[in-house]
């Protein structure tokens, strides 16, 4: 276990390219363990690109390329010897749109654990229950675990996606605007789940909703046009930011 207050992920001089244009320019950002880092910024500022460099999902696009280093517990995840599959088991992700796989609720949860080699029925059942409970979904679906995940509502689907990520028992959870398509009640449920989860996980939350960052994030980073403008304790970002552009953004003067 990483001790609290230590750095879980250290991003060092990271630049990411799609074709000739850098999508991210020289990002330096330490992410402390067992806390929530909020990432805010207008559309196209590189928030999602940044998030996807942390679990190497950008690798899937053939034209993408990165420079710099991303250290997970001190190890460079872009080192050729680093196993991408094991990385994604340690760094889970929840996508912007609720994206259950077209299978049953239970199978969605056990998809990752099964691939990781867990076959024991009792263990899988326990994982299903604990992860659904952590995502505040258990009571709503416990009687229909074998029905299709596609029949859940949008808010339920997104909590299922969170539960699915938790069932991997990752160390880091990346969330890419997880509440963008959800109503306020579903959003509140997810935020509640996140604040409870940070005692065990390192959470990186990209959000278009600055208020959401203010509500749940311990530290907040402001991205603008592929650059990290500043990162600080959330309280300071929203009250006494060092950069005037941050102030303008969080007070709604642009973005």
């Amino acid at each position, binding site marked *: 276990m990483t001790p609290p207050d230590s750095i879980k992920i250290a991003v060092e001089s990271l630049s990411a390219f799609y074709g000739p244009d850098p999508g991210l320019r020289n990002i330096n950002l330490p992410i402390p363990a067992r806390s929530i880092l909020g990432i805010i910024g207008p559309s196209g500022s590189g928030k999602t690109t940044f998030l996807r460099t942390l679990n190497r999902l950008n690798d899937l696009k053939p034209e993408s390329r990165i420079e710099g280093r991303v250290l997970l517990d001190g190890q460079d995840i872009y080192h050729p010897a680093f196993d991408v599959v094991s990385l*994604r088991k340690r760094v889970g992700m929840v996508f912007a749109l609720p*994206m259950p796989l*077209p299978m049953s609720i239970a199978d969605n949860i056990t998809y990752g654990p099964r*691939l990781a080699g867990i076959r024991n029925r009792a263990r899988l059942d326990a994982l299903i229950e604990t992860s659904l409970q952590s995502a505040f979904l258990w009571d709503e679906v416990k009687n229909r675990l074998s029905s299709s995940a596609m029949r859940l509502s949008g808010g339920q689907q997104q909590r299922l996606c969170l539960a699915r990520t938790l069932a991997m028992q990752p160390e880091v959870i990346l969330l890419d605007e997880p509440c963008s398509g959800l109503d306020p009640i579903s959003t509140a449920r997810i935020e509640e789940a996140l604040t409870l989860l940070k005692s065990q996980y390192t959470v990186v939350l990209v959000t278009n909703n600055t208020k959401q960052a203010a509500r749940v994030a311990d530290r907040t980073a402001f991205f603008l046009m592929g650059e990290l403008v500043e990162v600080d304790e959330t309280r300071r970002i929203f009250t006494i930011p060092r950069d005037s552009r941050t102030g303008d953004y969080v007070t709604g003067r642009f973005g």
Partner: protein
Amino acid sequence: MRIAPKYTQRIAIALLGGATLLTLLVLLFIILFVLEKGLPAVTWQFLSQAPRDMGRSGGIFPVIVGTFLLPLLAIAIALPLGVGTAVYLTEYTRETRLTRVIRFGTDCLAGIPSIIFGLFGFIFFVVILGFGWSLLSGGLTLALMILPTIIRTTEEAIRAVPNTFREVSFSLGATRWETVLHVVLPNALPGIATGIMLSLGRSIGETAAVIFTAGSALRMPTSVYDSVRTMAVHFYLLAREGISNENAYGTAAVLILAVLGVNLTAYWIMNRFVGRHT
């Protein structure tokens, strides 16, 4: 002079509706014509007995068996090859000159007349490889013939699987192969099934490619090295040689009903199978 939109609308509906109606009528006419001429010959004996006197009397049981064995063998050979090729082209390679050449090649293969496949099958499988006129030669030849269809429909079906499903799978620690196996192929299944159905339809009614490679023996096959006769070939020979028009139409009626039955069963299975999680 300009016709008022109200009338152009009516004319369009009448023309399009007429075209649809005409298509349906022609289809219906063919089916009814064959059934009307053929059904009187179709009795239980006709379905269950072996032919006698070159098919002049007796039934068509070994021919029915051959009609189903040959396409099944062809699909058993072509399906893994075709799906494998399609998965490789879509999931494992980038779009390059080479993949475009391969795709152009398969498209050309699809346009080759079946008698050319028959000729190739005869020279290569029957003569050079020495399989003789047999179930094996016929199955391999038909497999080559339906391979492009299976590759193309599978490719389209795989492309239609949303990329986000793949990303989700990867983000949960799956390898590419696990993603293909657990996410891509199950979701492409309806499209792949369409390809199988098209291929089955094409190979079940095929004569030219079959007669050169599987031969036309009327005996019941006991191994893949035995020659078989399919219903389409049987019909062709009975009618062409003037052996028995009644039995020829009887065979045609059974063939039409068999194709209809196969299609309905396949749709029923697909609906039960696919409807569950979508």
